[in-house]
């Protein structure tokens, strides 16, 4: 058993364990933290697989994303600490079957597939980043720019959806200011 295989197995098991914890704990904050640890372990798997840039990117991005998620969890949930142990699942049996079948199918494919010979020469980290930059600003530029445009659109759309509608404010302010003035003018004339 080689050293990379040991680390790959360790971080893979950690990612899987924390993923299971996400749906087993009643505390929403613990769920968000477990997802953070799971995604960090995925980032560590990238590092083991010598994709340094993507590994660091994954860890940094998920640390931020899961912190935001934990805040939203506390805001939205009636019982973020999970002290009430309320049930928040439905169709549990069918979901277990679906997840199990998905897992078994993917596992069978992973071990039964003939993937060809293993590549032995891996570019160094700096060279990888350089090649990725050339790829992004060369052949894949249109896809890269489309991704940028998509994320900008999503940001604007999410903000527009989240902003409180203006109609809710108007009925309270309009009658108070305009109605008395209108009455006063009609008496003068």
């Amino acid at each position, binding site marked *: 058993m080689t050293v990379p295989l040991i680390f790959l197995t360790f971080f893979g098991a950690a990612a899987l364990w924390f993923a299971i914890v996400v749906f087993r704990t009643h505390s929403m904050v613990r769920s968000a933290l477990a997802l953070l640890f799971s995604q960090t372990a995925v980032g560590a798997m990238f590092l083991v697989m010598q994709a340094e840039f993507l590994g660091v990117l994954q860890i940094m991005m998920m640390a931020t994303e899961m912190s935001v998620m934990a805040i939203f969890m506390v805001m939205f949930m009636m019982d973020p600490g999970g002290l009430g142990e309320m049930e928040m699942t439905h169709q549990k049996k069918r979901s277990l079957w679906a*997840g199990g079948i998905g897992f078994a199918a993917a596992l069978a494919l992973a071990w039964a597939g003939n993937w060809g010979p293993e590549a032995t020469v891996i570019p160094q980290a700096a060279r990888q980043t350089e090649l990725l930059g050339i790829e992004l600003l060369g052949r894949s530029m249109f896809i890269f720019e489309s991704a940028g445009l998509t*994320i900008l659109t999503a940001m604007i759309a999410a903000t527009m959806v989240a902003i409180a509608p203006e109609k809710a404010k108007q009925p309270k302010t309009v009658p108070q200011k305009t109605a008395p003035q209108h009455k006063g003018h009609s008496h003068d004339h």
Partner: protein
Amino acid sequence: MIIELSVALSFAAGLFGVGLYGALSQTNLVMIMMGVELMLAAALINLVAFWRYLHPDAMSGQMFVLIVMTVMAVEMAVGFGVAIARFRVRGSVEMEEARELKG
């Protein structure tokens, strides 16, 4: 057989199964999004493993990872936008109560 590749794909299969279970079984919108995040993380592992063990010279594999990461960020942004709108109107993000579009 490339053992490292199969091991990485196996853990990705596990993450996908757990994520699928979570996305289907949870009633809370934020928890459903967590399940989707796990499935996308499984896709990321697959992409990086295929790049590393089969085609390390083709950087389009890493580029695809960046696109999937973008999809993850977009999913979170839009999901939380919908969650805020829903919470403002109904005071809850429980999807059991969201049956308006069912007809």
